């Protein structure tokens, strides 16, 4: 009841490796759309490996806190009941939505999450570009209410793992759009490409883990637009492949801002990314208003959105021409 009998992420690791190889080979053969750059891939995969180690630092604390809360639970929910798994599927996914939204809309948690978005690529290796500082940022606290409700810690851990594994396969350009009913309910490669894009229209959209319905419900849904190809990365892309800078740059920048302007420290730490006391920088909301001239919660939906399945053309044109490299 307290320790997970299996770890979905550990079980899926061989699948991660094989599918990355498959995506690379298909792209090499011109059968799928995918771009991989050597240093970028090395950073993404190393961040993933490092996050496993970094997670150990706070794993004990998170587990002890979850256990303590579970001991003071409201109900006792059986792990063997089907309804309990349905309930935790929905509640864990809702928790993930708000965790993810918080991780984008408040700088303190963005500092931990930004490195997942800092690649200018969108491929399966990007999925493994995970935070080293999420545990320190305390985002695991958001899952404690599930234990308080009475879901066993093992059940919570398994469902979190299932969610993480689900989100792996959607980090790809090799899959275009899926059947309309699936795109309506589930998070898909198309929806998540939008989430990773830095185009103003796509900023701070599609926070879903497994079910895209949360974004539709809370007004953060944005479909992928054929007329607006995704440009991946962050508003100010990284100018380095130094892994320590990749992992910690936003923490350092945030601390520097808070120290430089102590009377505005709370704004620099807990305000939205891009917030400044003198308005000299732009938040995502400001960028959207400037670029689109529209209220920030207005999704742009083309007339044909969702009415037809489409796919990308094989990426022969996106293959690297060695002669063109500097």
């Amino acid at each position, binding site marked *: 009841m307290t320790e997970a009998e299996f770890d979905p992420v*550990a079980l899926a*690791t061989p699948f991660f*490796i094989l599918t*990355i*190889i498959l995506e*690379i*080979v298909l*792209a*090499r053969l011109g059968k799928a759309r*995918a*771009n*991989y*750059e*050597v*240093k*970028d*891939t*090395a950073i993404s*995969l*190393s961040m*993933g*490996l490092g996050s*496993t*180690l970094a997670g*150990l630092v706070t794993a004990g604390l998170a587990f002890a806190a979850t256990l303590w809360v579970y001991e003071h639970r409201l109900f006792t929910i059986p792990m063997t009941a089907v309804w309990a798994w349905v309930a935790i599927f929905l509640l864990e996914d809702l928790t993930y939505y708000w965790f993810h939204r918080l991780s984008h809309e408040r700088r303190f948690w963005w500092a931990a999450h930004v490195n997942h978005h800092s690649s*200018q*690529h969108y491929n399966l*290796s990007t999925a493994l570009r995970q935070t080293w500082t999420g545990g320190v940022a305390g985002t695991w606290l958001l899952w404690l209410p599930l234990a308080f409700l009475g879901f066993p810690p093992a059940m919570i851990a398994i469902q979190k793992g299932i969610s993480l594994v689900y989100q792996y396969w959607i980090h790809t350009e090799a899959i275009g759009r899926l059947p309309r009913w699936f795109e309506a309910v589930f998070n898909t490669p198309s929806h998540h490409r939008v989430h990773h894009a830095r185009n103003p229209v796509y900023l701070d959209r599609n926070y879903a883990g497994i079910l895209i319905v949360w974004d539709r419900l809370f007004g953060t849904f944005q479909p992928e637009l054929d007329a607006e190809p995704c*440009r991946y*990365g962050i508003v*100010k*892309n*990284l*100018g*380095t*492949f130094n892994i320590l*800078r990749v992992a910690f*740059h*936003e923490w*350092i*920048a945030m601390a*520097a801002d808070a120290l430089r302007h102590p009377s505005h420290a709370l704004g620099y730490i807990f305000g939205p990314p891009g917030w400044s006391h003198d308005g000299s920088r732009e938040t995502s909301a400001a960028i959207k208003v*400037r*670029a689109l001239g529209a209220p920030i919660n207005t999704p742009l939906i083309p007339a044909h959105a969702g009415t037809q399945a489409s796919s990308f053309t094989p990426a022969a044109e*996106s*293959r*690297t*021409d*060695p002669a*063109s*490299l*500097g």
Partner: protein
Amino acid sequence: MDEAFFIQLALSAAAVGALVAIVAWAKIAKPVRPLDDHKARVLLAEEFPTRSIDAIWTASDGAGALAKSGGMALVLCRVGDGFAARQIPWPQAVSATFRNGRLHVNLDDIAAPAATIRLPSWPPENLTKDLAA
């Protein structure tokens, strides 16, 4: 942490190395053609849509560019098969170190500490005189 953990860690590290080697073999990075003035202006317009460009210097190897925009310098530098852009005060760009045909610009940003741009000369004489005036 038991022995199994370290074995799993070692295997994961080996897998990372193998995958990076496969990526190097595959050569499927985004095609990056050397920048010319037009392409550099397009990229800078995407990055700084509210700024207009007074003058632009594109690197001789097409891997970067520097533009004057009012009192600011807009800097574009290649990172892998993509680009990163930053803006710094123009005087900071003018006083950047120029040696052996390379301009080393300090960007004062932990996430993009510096840019190196190959240029035939620096600083541009006319603009420097204008600023001095």
